[in-house]
């Protein structure tokens, strides 16, 4: 009998496995419960309770007494806020209805998604529906993304991604429908695109710290510059220029030479430092990380990479944060989309603390870069287009090949203490950055800074 008694440990082994597995489940339950629970409304088709409001308190979506989801009554506002709010089917994973479902339902570990009060919470987004409306109108049917945020507090006041649709009347979208290409993707948070010349702000930051006598140097642009064993071309000859003029002219030749001179390791280091290859957590939503294949390039390839071409890809949100860091002495606030939540009793959530990025750029360098970006506006883009704004910006016209028009970019920030905003505008295949994307930026910023 003693023998069999000793062999009984095998049963304990099985019981131990059950115990261990249950512990693993409990761990997952505690760690991921909020995220798991957020899918139930999608699975069950019963909308999660709770209202989504913009920062001014405009109710963007709610569930009526019959358990049916309702939306704001302007179709354009609904479409313009689609990617911020989400759709009823939960296809837009970064929309508030999915991404913040736990806060909407008032999820907590103790009572799950069903609060004892039986009602959901009010979720105030940081965006202003009006800015979204203006940005959406300004994009005028073109695909792209617009983001504006306060680099001191992190509040994203405008976030639009197009194409979009009206969540109250979702279209029947067929695979391969050009009009709705990538419609469920929030291009601002989850996209990555060829940056073109906006990336020169990174190359320049590296050059300021690594190229001796940068400000004394001059270059002569003939429209085609030999870099390594090939050429790097500009749209037209820029003639003789110093570094200030090279930036405002956005001279590819000069920046390709600088990149080749510094080498890929230096460029890679500054790109990583700028946060362009990292992913941010925007209230728990992971942004897409950009990618820069700065490894094993020839000098010519490196030259093209240094002007934001070659295989460079950047995420619009990460670029906007970098702009904020340039404005803010090297560090910026990490973007946020949730202003606050109020539960059914009207009790507000605990205030969330603004998180700061690491040093994306050295403080002195940021100041020098900001001044040069200011000169872009005064010399090239036209300060009159941006009234009452101490605007610093860089345009980009990113060649995408395939016979398609280039992506138009416009990114920058305001140095005004009362409106500390950084922004990014991307118009896919939009053409000239300064004209097309710049005018979208002008309309949105005018609303943000000057009001109606």
């Amino acid at each position, binding site marked *: 009998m003693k023998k*069999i008694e000793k062999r*009984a440990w095998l049963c*304990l082994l*099985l019981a131990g496995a059950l115990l261990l597995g249950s512990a693993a489940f409990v761990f997952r*339950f505690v760690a991921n419960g*909020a995220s*798991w629970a957020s899918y139930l409304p999608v699975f069950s088709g019963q909308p999660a309770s709770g209202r989504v409001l913009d920062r001014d308190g405009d109710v963007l979506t709610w569930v009526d007494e019959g358990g049916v989801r309702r939306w704001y009554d302007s179709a354009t506002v609904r479409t313009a806020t689609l990617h911020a709010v989400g759709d009823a089917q939960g296809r837009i994973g970064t929309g508030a209805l999915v991404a913040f479902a736990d806060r909407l339902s008032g999820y907590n*570990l103790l009572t799950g998604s*069903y609060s004892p009060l039986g009602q959901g919470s009010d979720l105030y987004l940081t965006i202003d529906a009006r800015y979204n409306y203006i940005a959406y109108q300004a994009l005028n049917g073109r695909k792209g993304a617009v983001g504006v945020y306060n680099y001191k507090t992190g509040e994203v006041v405008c976030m639009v991604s197009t194409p979009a649709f009206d969540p109250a009347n979702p279209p029947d979208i067929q695979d391969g429908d050009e009009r709705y290409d990538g419609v469920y993707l929030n291009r601002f948070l989850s996209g990555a695109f060829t940056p073109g010349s906006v990336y020169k702000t990174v190359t320049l930051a590296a050059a300021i710290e690594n190229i001796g006598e940068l400000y004394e140097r001059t270059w002569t642009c003939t429209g085609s510059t030999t870099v390594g064993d090939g050429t790097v071309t500009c749209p037209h000859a820029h003639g003789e220029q110093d570094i200030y003029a090279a930036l405002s002219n956005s001279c590819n030749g000069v920046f390709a030479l600088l990149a080749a001179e510094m080498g890929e390791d230096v460029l890679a280091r500054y790109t990583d430092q700028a946060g362009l290859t990292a992913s941010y957590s925007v209230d728990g939503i992971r942004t897409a990380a950009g990618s820069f294949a700065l490894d094993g390039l020839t000098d010519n390839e490196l030259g093209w990479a240094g002007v934001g071409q070659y295989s460079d890809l950047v995420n619009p949100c990460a670029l906007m944060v970098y702009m904020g860091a340039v404005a803010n002495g090297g560090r910026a606030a990490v973007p946020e989309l949730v202003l606050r939540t109020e539960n059914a009793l009207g009790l507000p959530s605990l205030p969330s603390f603004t998180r700061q990025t690491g040093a994306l750029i050295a403080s002195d360098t940021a100041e020098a870069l900001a001044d040069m970006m200011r000169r872009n506006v005064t010399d090239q883009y036209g300060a009159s287009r941006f009234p009452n704004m101490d605007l610093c910006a860089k345009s980009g016209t990113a060649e995408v090949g395939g016979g398609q028009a280039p992506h138009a970019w416009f990114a920058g920030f305001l140095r005004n203490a009362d409106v500390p905003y950084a922004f990014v505008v991307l118009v896919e295949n939009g053409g000239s950055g300064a004209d097309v994307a710049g005018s979208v930026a002008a309309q949105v910023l005018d609303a943000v800074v000057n009001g109606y």
Partner: protein
Amino acid sequence: MLLQWLTDNPQFCAWFTTLVRFLFPILALMILIRTIHSLLTVPCLPEVWAYLTLPNGAQEPLTHWENILGRGGSSDVILNYPVVSRQHAALIRRAEDTWTAYDLGSKGGVTVNGKAVEGSAPVQYGDVVALGGVETVLLPLSPEEKAQRRQRRREHRPVSPWLGLILLTLFQVLTAVQLTISEGENATVMIPLTFLLLTGVMWLYFLVLRASRRVGFEMETIAFFLSTLSLAITASSNTGELFKQFLCVALGLAGFLILGVFLRELDRAKRIRWLMAGAAIALAAVTLLPGVPTQYGAANWLTIAGISVQPSELAKICYIFAGAATLERLFHRRNLGLFILLTGAVLGCLALMSDFGTAAIFFVTFLVIAYLRSGDWATLALICGGGVFAVLTMLSLKPYILRRFATWGHAWQNASTGSGYQQTRTMASAASGGLVGVGPGEGWLHNVAAGDTDLVFGMLCEEWGLVIALLAVGSVITLAVFAVRACRAGRSSFYVIAACAATSMMVFQTCLNVFGAVDILPLTGVTFPFVSNGGTSMISSWGLLAFLKATDTRPNASFAIRLPSRREDRKNAALAPQAGEEWEVEHEEN
């Protein structure tokens, strides 16, 4: 009338639901913690059946019905003499207090009163049993000592069941009301009536057994608690099946009693092992016979006169019965040949039905029994090798099974296909219940196919909360720990093997059910013992519990163990007068 009042007062209903959500976990904890604690800390004082005097004058107690005598450290009575083999002889007690000595192929041989033992020979009290010339004498316990021992063991009595029973009754009443509320306007008297019957059956069982001087009720408390959850799950997902599920609880309880009483007599149990082996194969094979009506596309359901049963569930009980063996038999037939044959036949039938979850449960149970019987790693390794080969063969014949494993661990990436569909919905529902659950009958997961059976853990989490779901799992673990601890005071290896096999079966089945539902393992589609909605599964769970009950050798604890007659008891009490009556009186007060 009450139903009408409930529909007229939605405000009260909302408050009630909110309140009981928090009350249920507290009640469940109060019901189970004492019970679980009592089972986990069972002192398991061994009983003494006789004494063996050694040449040096020492008296060794024989604490089991089956004792191995030898030089080896794992012998029950260690005789440290060079002439004694490691495992020399066995002394086995049969019914009516008769003993038999077995020569286990020793070098020195065994004699009883000087006569050499060929195989086995009966031993009377006072006889001299010599092992390789080392003489021992078998002596009975004096009646005084018997009485004293019984008394001493009684001091460690099981936890009183009454508080738990009253709390469980309250739990059932609240559950019935909450479920009726959740039905809204469709509410009928069906739910309160069925729960009333359950409570009645439960009290009847406790009172009848208490009247027959039984005091250990921990396992039954756990089983009734889990059965209550099962009825609630059934009411939530399919109220129409509620009464059927209750009938199965009653049937299971009856089976539990019959099997337990049957197991009291070891000889009787031993005799029908062959019958049970045959029954196991017959039950596993019956649905494969041509012309037998089956249901749900799967071939593991049998429909007789409108009643669907899963014979493979009942085969579990027969299989364990057939697999358990007394020590006597273990020495008589050392190899596992016939048992392997039985296992092969059962597994073959299950594989033909594509019921691989159940097949896996049988295989693990087989491993446990085989190890307990042989203790031989080499055999087990060989068997496992065979198992792997069988699985590979099957996969090559039925490659679609592999697809189940393709999404394993990636349920969220495959939320709309295959088992990922069910698993993601299980996890989403489970999480939305939080720690306290949304309230019985208020969940959503029952809308998903197999929500109340294979995914029942998700339903438990959603409607009852993580705390109660974990308590259900903890109850199963408790039974396993109890079975292992009870080995120490086990009377016969038959009971020990059966109990260990039964709990291993329940534990492994719970593993497959719980981990399959939440994507820690692939979804195999087996039931949670006691909890899942399913009649045959409920009956077989109660049946398996009988094997555990038969190892509970605490005095007066288990009905599956024969009590001394009242006359004998009175005689004992007279011999040890200091505590006898007192104990009875004291116990009545509880």
